[in-house]
């Protein structure tokens, strides 16, 4: 347990978090490994886990019958994967597939949601860490939409 808490503490997402909250987070965590090609989750499945990548890379993909798997983003060590577990109905929006060996912290989403419902200060702390990531992703997506290198 102490070992897991140390690993959680070392992940950039939790940098500077208070001991009390780290303990709550670590209580929902477990170590996970994925082989290359293995799916962390698939589109439409229940979003029950939140991942913090420690090593390796993960592709976020959406599959289309004509085009195959279209990669929409790539996440690496230090990144987080998965937001759908925060917002009802808790279903994954896309596929997440390991590109080679991946080590991650996996957090039980039901466990986390329960804890921040019970402890609003903890919930605020978690949201405070997610919102900047969401904003950065939204802004990056808007930039992609602008198609700045577009062909004539």
């Amino acid at each position, binding site marked *: 347990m102490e070992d897991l808490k140390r690993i959680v503490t070392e992940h950039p997402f939790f940098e500077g978090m208070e001991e009390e909250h780290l303990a709550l987070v670590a209580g929902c965590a477990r170590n996970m490994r994925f082989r290359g090609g293995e799916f962390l989750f698939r589109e439409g499945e229940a979003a029950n886990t939140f991942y913090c990548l420690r090593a390796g890379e993960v592709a976020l993909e959406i599959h289309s019958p004509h085009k*195959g798997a279209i*990669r929409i983003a*790539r996440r690496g060590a230090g990144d987080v994967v998965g937001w759908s577990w925060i917002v009802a109905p808790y279903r994954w929006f896309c596929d997440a597939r390991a590109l080679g060996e991946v080590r991650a912290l996996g957090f039980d989403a039901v466990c986390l949601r329960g804890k921040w419902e019970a402890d609003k200060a903890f919930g605020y702390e978690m949201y405070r860490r997610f919102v900047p990531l969401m904003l950065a992703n939204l802004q990056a997506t808007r930039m992609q939409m602008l198609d700045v290198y577009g062909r004539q």
Partner: protein
Amino acid sequence: MDASDPLCPRPAPVRAVHHETADVFTLILDVSAIPGGAAFAPGQFMMLYVFGVGEAPISISGDARDSRTLAHTIRAVGGVTRALRNLRPGDVLGVRGPYGSAWPVAAARGRDVVIVAGGIGLAPLRPVIYHLLRRREDYGHINICCGARSPGDILYTGELQRWREEGDMQVMVTVDHGDPGWRGQVGVVTELLDRVRCDPANTLAFTCGPEIMMRFTVRKLRELGIAGEAIHVSMERNMHCAVGFCGHCQFGPLFVCKDGPVFPWPRIAPFFGIREL
């Protein structure tokens, strides 16, 4: 031909044509017959003239050490650039230049370097990379961040690979839209900047690409702690003459042709955000 007339092109034969992507190609021009060749500094551009069609400003994308040939990587988007695409080895075009300001490569000595290129914006930065590679040991970390629309639009893929493997450089490429075969990064080029290796206090940054991309790139570089004076931006504006006579390329008080195209960020910052300037 009047050598003192800055508006008169000189003939230069095409030595080779390389196809880079579906709409981008590189012309290798033989300028050995021009007195003095075409000595240029990384970041400068030439005016290329196609007989009877017209002239277009095109950045120089080759090695500045070679003054007998000029390399130009061109995207076929307009009348002149489409005509340039139809040229074959042996064809002759007209050249004037080199014109404009250069990337301050000499100032990079002893420092880390961050190069951020979007689309065809990698072309005017390639001479910088050649320059850095020649004396790799003179520089600290070198980061090359490239953004492209799709995997098929990435320029110089072979060279990027070689720089990554042999050049002791961190080369990162991202595309706006992946395709099924794409195994690399998807997203905007600014996201790559989170992973650059540099000491912000001792880093020089060069960026060229669409203006929106450069705006966000500069913002991100500043967030990383890189001083405005250490950031250099290459601008694009309409250009007819390249020598300050025609007035088209004005950007606030600056003429992109003779004051630019490469500007230290503080010089253009007051005007960069103004709409329709």
